[in-house]
């Protein structure tokens, strides 16, 4: 219970502090980082925990963004309804893409999910008409400013909304991972063969994770639309899929804080470098961070610490000394 109180206090501090300290631009930037955090968390669930290389992230991000834009433009939905609708559309999109894509693995899964992104991107660029409205083609769409009681939401309220949504995503993912279902995800990554022979059918687990992850990424896309005010088919850019995976990996995949660290790193650091006049260094810093995490903590800093602790424990309790700690830590 003490831990929970601490988390709530840190949570409130994280909400209020930026309002007092940051100017509008920096507040926008951290809002954007939290939007990407949600998408990276969804990506991490799939790529980090269950080891399924999906490049469909941008497709669901874009679906979420377009859902909120069309929902408020054509159906006069409120922003909250738009975010929920985006989750539903993302989940459905996940089912549609997951059914064929999850029959293959690794590189084939990556390629087939990438195909999903390219198809959607092309389709939205071609400016089809949809439900009697236009999808805007390469010009994109304006996302009406979110309002509450007829008044447009200030950037502070928008921050609060994004923060609340990100906190919910964090709590959901944390609770999921620290349960029987989290153990099943790790088991799926470590030995699908053994998991299956314990009575767990793999297909529904994979599909469930894929759909859940798609819904999370779509929610992030919806907030992206609300935050930026305009969207165009570049939100379906395959580069975004790779950036989302980069966020999950840089922070250390399979660690609940990992996507947050990764999202802050990728969103905020280039701006900091640019302000300091070292623009070109941003890309180099990516490369270095990538290298360092992949070399030293491929499973995330959390797991790295727990492994170090494990080695120390194993050495102390002397379980047949010869074999204990035989495996090198980290990259090995």
């Amino acid at each position: 219970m003490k831990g929970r109180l601490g988390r709530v206090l840190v949570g409130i501090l994280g909400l209020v502090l930026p309002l007092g300290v940051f100017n509008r631009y920096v507040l926008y930037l951290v809002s954007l980082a939290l939007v990407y955090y949600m998408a990276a968390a969804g990506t991490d669930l799939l790529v980090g925990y269950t080891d399924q290389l999906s490049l469909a992230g941008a497709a669901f991000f874009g679906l979420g963004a377009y859902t909120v834009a069309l929902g408020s433009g054509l159906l006069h939905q409120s922003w909250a309804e738009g975010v929920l609708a985006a989750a539903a559309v993302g989940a459905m999109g996940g089912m549609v893409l997951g059914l064929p894509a999850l029959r293959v693995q690794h590189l084939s899964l990556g390629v087939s999910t990438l195909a999903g992104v390219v198809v959607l991107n092309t389709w939205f660029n071609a400016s089809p008409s949809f439900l009697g409205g236009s999808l805007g083609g390469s010009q994109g769409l304006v996302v009406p400013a979110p309002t509450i009681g007829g008044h447009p939401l200030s950037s502070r309220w928008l921050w609060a909304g994004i923060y609340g949504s990100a906190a919910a995503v964090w709590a959901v993912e944390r609770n999921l991972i620290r349960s029987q279902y989290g153990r099943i995800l790790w088991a799926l990554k470590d030995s699908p063969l053994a998991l299956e022979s314990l009575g767990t059918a793999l297909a529904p687990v994979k599909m469930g994770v894929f759909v859940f992850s798609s819904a999370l990424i779509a929610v992030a896309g919806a907030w992206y639309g609300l935050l930026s005010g305009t969207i165009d088919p570049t939100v379906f850019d395959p580069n975004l899929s790779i950036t989302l995976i980069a966020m999950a990996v840089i922070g250390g995949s399979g660690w609940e804080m990992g996507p947050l660290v990764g999202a802050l790193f990728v969103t905020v650091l280039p701006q900091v470098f640019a302000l300091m006049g070292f623009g070109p260094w941003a890309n180099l810093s990516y490369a270095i961070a990538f290298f360092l995490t992949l070399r030293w903590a491929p499973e995330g800093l959390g797991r790295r610490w727990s492994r170090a602790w494990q080695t120390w424990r194993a050495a102390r309790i002397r379980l047949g000394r010869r074999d204990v700690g035989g495996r090198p830590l980290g990259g090995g």
Partner: protein
Amino acid sequence: MADLLEVVEVRKSYGGVQALKSVSFSLAAGEVVALMGPNGAGKTTLVNVICGHTRPDGGVVRLDGRSLAGMGPARVARLGIARTFQNLCLFDHLTAVENVAVAVGLGAYRVSDAILRRWAFRAGEADILGRAEKVLDAVGFPPEARDLTPPMLPYGLRKRLELARALARNPKVLVLDEPVAGMNREEWPAIAGLIRAVAASGVGVLVIEHHWPFVQQVGQRGVFMAHGSVIAQGCWSEILSPREVVGRGLGRADGVGAPVL
């Protein structure tokens, strides 16, 4: 007594190679049967057929009289066949107790219970971990090593952990693929005792093992395979003695190590 597990005329070919040529045998509840034979005899293919990993070309496997035809490994496992693997297949990112918890906790509570941290989750989780610890105790796994991950454990304990994980499913049939491979000889009697105790509780145990002294400690009957066929089966006195096995070029004189063709 009706047989718990029946394998009837099972056949399987890979390309032109007949891995199994009409194999039949049976296993009763409470019995330990040793499945033996040189490398390439078809033992692992047979186990994969029994556990639903491989679909046979012909023949049928029955559990409690019910045909397992067309069922995948998860289905077969839920009906009560648990297995261990020749090369350990443990969950390396999970602690020992969590490894067993994966097996114990299937369907204990719903995803929504976990996400919302409902009471069903708290009660279910406490129950799962408690049961997992009991299973680990039952196979003689040291309590102080419960929260270590498999890569940190000595080999013998990893073997015990895999056995515990299979037992946690409360199986009717337990299939052990080389349970003492890579273990010290001093550890054999403990593992043999464990297997006999499991059988005494009414589980049918199929042990795939090369080591004659070990299988004779643990099993009541042997099924000897070579080239995809059962060449002998029955009680130890009825089938080949080690000397005869050596005479036919199927094993080594000291009975240790893999018989090599």
